């Protein structure tokens, strides 16, 4: 069972950093609501507060890791230009998508949107992590700040969801492949 190096990097980008980030939004939303809701709020211990602060910081780091790996490792492979006369475009995903009208939209709308909107996730989540680290449970006393934190969390979720959705779809129609093969598991196959 083998996989190419570029596919490994795509998996790390989308399924490790991206998917883990998307999963973590539920915990962040529930935690923030429980801690900072203005009525009947949960008062965490110092350790619990620190844990949640680290949790939000890790979310921001996951978002940064996903966009940086995507923009500076995977995107160059995606947008690589084939040499003149290349007929097999499977190693050039952007060109492969643009070669058919039925798939061109996945680049023109999908990738063009994903490559920009994704950056709103680390920006907004860094602000969320900072605000919780700075104000902590005192956010419950300050409704406008609390609303801003929730709005930034929702924005981060929207940005990560759009990027994740189009990333998955682009990988279905024009996967980024290539580089040395990585053996995941050796198996002996008897016929």
């Amino acid at each position, binding site marked *: 069972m083998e996989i190419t190096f570029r596919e490994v990097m795509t998996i790390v980008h989308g399924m490790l950093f991206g998917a883990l980030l998307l999963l973590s939004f539920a915990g962040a939303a529930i935690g923030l609501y429980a801690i900072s809701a*203005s*009525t009947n709020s949960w008062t965490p211990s110092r350790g619990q507060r620190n844990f949640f602060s680290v949790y939000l910081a890790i979310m921001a780091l996951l978002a940064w890791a996903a*966009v940086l790996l995507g*923009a*500076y490792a995977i*995107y*160059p492979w995606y*947008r690589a230009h084939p040499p003149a006369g290349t007929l097999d475009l499977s190693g050039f995903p952007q060109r492969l998508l643009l070669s058919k009208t039925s798939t061109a939209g996945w680049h*023109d*709308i999908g990738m*063009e*949107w994903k*490559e*920009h*909107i994704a*950056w*709103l996730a680390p*920006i*907004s989540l*860094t*602000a969320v992590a*900072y*605000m919780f680290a*700075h*104000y902590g449970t*005192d956010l*419950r*006393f*300050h*409704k*406008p*700040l609390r*609303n*801003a934190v929730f*709005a*930034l969390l929702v*924005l981060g979720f*929207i940005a990560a969801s759009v990027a994740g959705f189009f990333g998955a779809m682009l990988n279905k129609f024009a996967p980024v492949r290539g580089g040395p093969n990585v053996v995941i598991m050796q198996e002996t196959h008897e016929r």
Partner: protein
Amino acid sequence: MSDSSAPKLVSGPGAAAVLAAAIGGFALGVLALAADAISPLARMLNFWNPTGPLSGVTDVAITVWFASWFALSRRWVERNPNLQRVNLAAALLLVGGLLLTFPPFMDLLQGK
């Protein structure tokens, strides 16, 4: 929540983080549109050839975000700016930034 036990909070640092994130998001949208519409600008934003103009668009937007956060934090470090206005401005900037990254909206603005 009006609570007599509520601690005195200085809202300036939080307001600075919110408004700076919105400024960074809006800068991202404006730069994405500008790079799409103006070829010479796209070439200028091509900071790293393998990634193309996206490298400059995102690097400049992040620089704008950090610079505005730094400046607003210094200005509001011990102040309590009007948070309703800050949140409204941030919401408008973020909606603008979101729209400007959406390719059909970019095309609409360029008359494509």
